[in-house]
């Protein structure tokens, strides 16, 4: 458990709304299609799906907020 492939799968769920929606509709099939091994597929099926949705929403909001932040000296220079 835990591999570059699993991390990539999670990163996609956290950043791509359509991937997350597809996973929520069909967790096992989506995980298997992403190339996860059966242990990781089972883990994703049993995962905290509500938490995944909340985390993805939080990351989306934080990306938006961070994009609006710049260092003080850059701000002073306009």
């Amino acid at each position, binding site marked *: *458990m835990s591999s570059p492939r699993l991390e990539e799968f999670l990163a996609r769920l956290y950043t791509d709304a359509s991937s997350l929606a597809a996973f929520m509709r069909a967790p096992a099939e989506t995980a298997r299609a992403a190339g996860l091994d059966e242990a990781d597929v089972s883990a994703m099926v049993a995962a905290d799906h509500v*938490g995944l949705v*909340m985390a993805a929403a939080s990351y989306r909001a934080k990306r938006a907020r961070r994009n609006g932040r710049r260092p003080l000296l850059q701000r002073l220079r306009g």
Partner: protein
Amino acid sequence: MAGAAAVERRDRFGLGWRPELAAGILAHLDRVDVIEVIAEDYFGASRGDLRALRTLAAQVRMVLHGVSLGLASTLPVERKRLDRIARLIDNTGAEAWSEHLAFVRAGGIEIGHLAAPPRSEASVEGACRNLESATRIVGCAPLVENIATLVVPPASQLGEAEWIAGIVRGAGVKLLLDLHNLYANAVNCGDDPYTLLRRMPLDEVAAVHLSGGRWIDGPSGVRRLLDDHLHDVPAAVFELLRELGRLAPQPLTVIIERDGRHPPMARLLEQLDDARAALAAGRKIGP
């Protein structure tokens, strides 16, 4: 290495350096022992900006805080990212640096924030490999910080404290213990924050983060505590700091993080005083 890896012999209390707080911090350096600068804010900085940062470091103890390395990953951290940290420490004379136990990218996808990897032996080993590279390339080891997560990391085999202890002891690094992150993870999982605190490798804690957050609603009526750095440090977190002070006798550097909805400086200074009082109270009780 100009300034990193200084050894502290007393508790210190400080603030995260943010543009909105700069004037207030500079006006109250008698009450702020240390500032924590987000490293990524200065990766592309001009010579003038770096000179200003160096001047700041000459006035108040400064530590750097990274948010984008992605140390807790089975994927290696890119050399160029570590080189930037090394250059920034050399250019500013910062006395130490820290990073999160998180993954932030994979397969060319940037999450854009700190994500909790599966807590497994594989991610412990990956983090230890990355910390070895980071220490070698930067010239000193980072403190590593526990992150907040709204989701129990899928495919986890280890508990949070066990996973963090495995990395800290395996890599031989110190822990930056974020008490609001710890509190949020505990309450979001229905666990007792004090139990989670006591399971952490408390003898390896060198620094502490304090911040605040808010409850958010999710699907199916679920509510979870979001660590947003936009609210005051709650009383429950000061209570955890007191307990930490009771259990961890070593000197600690305590930083309050505030990323927005900034209160008047007087309010932040009050919270620093609350932190001083909480830690001192714990120290007085003892283990």
